[in-house]
């Protein structure tokens, strides 16, 4: 090895494998020039690394945009959840609302305009909206 050269920086950066590291150490033990260079490179490396991290200028990355992802996701989730809750309440209310009064064929016809057969199979008893007790059973 003439001189250690770039092995020095690689060593300082933790990028040297075992074999090369040993070669470097062997060389440094007998080469004052490279030992000096090792110290110099360490000082320069530390100096560059001591530069302060600059803060982002205000507005460069708009906060609204940065936050848009989680906000959008949350908003979508909340809207969906709210819709599901409303739908569930309506469904439960419809089921639980007692309607003990049997509807007649005339009632159905007048309310829905539907033509319900007068056949006993489609009689009023068959179109009674189930009561709570019937649901429970």
């Amino acid at each position: 090895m003439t001189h250690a050269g770039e092995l020095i920086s690689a060593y300082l950066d933790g990028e040297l494998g075992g074999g090369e590291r040993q070669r470097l150490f062997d060389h440094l033990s007998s080469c004052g020039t490279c030992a000096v260079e090792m110290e110099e490179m360490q000082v320069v490396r530390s100096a560059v690394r001591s530069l302060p991290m600059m803060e982002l200028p205000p507005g460069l990355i708009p906060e609204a945009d940065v936050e848009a992802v989680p906000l959008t996701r949350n908003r979508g989730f909340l809207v969906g959840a709210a819709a599901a809750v409303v739908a569930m309440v309506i469904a439960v209310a419809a089921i639980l609302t007692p309607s003990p009064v049997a509807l007649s064929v005339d009632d159905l016809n007048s309310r829905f305009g539907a033509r319900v057969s007068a056949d006993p199979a489609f009689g009023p008893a068959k179109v009674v909206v189930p009561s709570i007790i019937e649901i429970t059973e």
Partner: protein
Amino acid sequence: MTESIPLTWEEVARVYGKKIYNFAYRLTGNSNDAADLVQEVLLRVRRGLASYQPGSFEGWLWRITRNAFLDDVRKRKRRPTSPLPDDIDRWDLASSPGADVEFSRVSLGDDIQKALLELPVEFREAVVLCDIVGLSYEEISQAAAVPIGTVRSRIHRGRKILKELLT
């Protein structure tokens, strides 16, 4: 470095924005150019994420970042960008006075920044990616699309020139 892949450009901005800005600031030496570069990088990230293939996200991101910087240098040609020297010996490194020389001004950030700007672009980006951004040689190799041996050489040469400039 983690390899978790941000899903959106907003997340890239939030996680890497400050690092990209500091990379740009140390390469350009001024906040306006650095801010422009950050915006350009995020724009490219936004376009590129759709076709991003799983791999080294750091390598991909910093490749975009340094390409944006180099494109800007070529386009505007108003920054101090020394050409890569054919003969590194011109720095007369053999006449180095030795480690006992005190780097009396080395603690001054302005002088370090000024010295960085005097480095050839290839050396400057390697040193900044290593010492400011904190990338490994492997990641720098991917970002700059050069072999690790070249990265090692550029960083060391860059530091030797910095040492000359700071003493």
